[in-house]
């Protein structure tokens, strides 16, 4: 087994330590949600950043990517890259056109201006977007 040799050296202590860090990060992310950093984008950026840190820890230590043959990590990372592509193009589209909205649901169309943000997983967040107007019910 490829990671068999590591299984012994990778003692339970590493797992306990990983869990401790994960729990602390969870505490931080919940705590941060109660603090207003001035913009909801920043809050979300922090939350997703911590989540990514946690996910990396799980992948590297619990899922053994640290010791696995590189192919497994390549598979994992390419799935994330392709997911990024899937987010990128609809995102470019939606924020560079007039929104498809029915009459009366929105007064003003989405401005194409606010697009400085990088297409990270947080890209969906657009605090600056104008408010939807009247209820349609």
């Amino acid at each position, binding site marked *: 087994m490829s990671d068999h040799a590591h299984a012994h050296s990778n003692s339970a202590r590493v797992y306990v330590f990983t869990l401790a860090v994960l729990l602390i990060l969870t505490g931080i992310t919940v705590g941060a949600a109660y603090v207003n950093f001035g913009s909801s984008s920043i809050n979300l950026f922090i939350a997703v950043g911590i989540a990514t840190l946690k996910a990396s820890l799980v*992948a590297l230590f619990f899922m053994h990517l640290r010791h696995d043959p590189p192919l497994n990590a390549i598979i*994992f990372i390419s799935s994330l890259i392709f997911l990024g592509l899937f987010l990128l193009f609809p995102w470019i589209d939606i924020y560079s056109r007039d929104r498809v909205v029915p009459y009366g649901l929105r007064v003003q169309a989405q401005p194409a201006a606010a697009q400085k943000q990088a297409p990270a997983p947080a890209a969906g967040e657009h605090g600056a977007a104008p408010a*939807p107007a009247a209820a349609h019910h």
Partner: protein
Amino acid sequence: MSSETHVVEHGAEPAFRQHHFVDAEQQFSTSKIGMWLFLATEILMFGGLFVGYGLMQGVYPEAWVAGHHHLDRIMGAINTVFLLCSSFTMVMAVHASSTNQKSKTILNLLFTLAFAAGFLVIKYFEYSHKFHDGLLPGRYFAYHGGGPPQQAMFFGFYFVMTGLHGFHVVVGMALITWITIRASRGEFSSAYYTPVDLVGLYWHLVDLIWIYLFPLLYLVS
């Protein structure tokens, strides 16, 4: 049938090795590649939901903020802790099975099951609370507290995402039960613990997805 081998191989071969592999090491690493490929498909499947959720959040930020105020952060945080702990006990089980510690394997798998069950119990309370308040997806949305109408869409995403995740938790529990039974029969050893390892990978992915679901659903403000 697949384990039959008519070609005489060198020496005695373990029963778990399938005939089309040269040795156990090849079989193990191949299984892991297969599992990682499967996990990649899971990431892209959930990823589609995240993409839709994120784009719609950009379009209706007020509805998303209003919607997430109905979610209980504390319950979400407790569930996060449950899943992280279950991931830990799972990896301990994999470690134990790869070092021939049968009873420790079983104990850790049972802990994992308990944490998973705890997760589902909390999810049940959250869901029933939403049902009670009429916070339902789409045309069944019957909440009378006001707010942007697109909250109906937010709860559509909430139920699809947590529902699909919950389904994966249930499947994971079934798989863990299956390997617990096999472990209690003493089928695993340092020479062969592939099923424990693969179910472990699956279970960590379920955890991984929740790690993103939690901040995106519960902590947007």
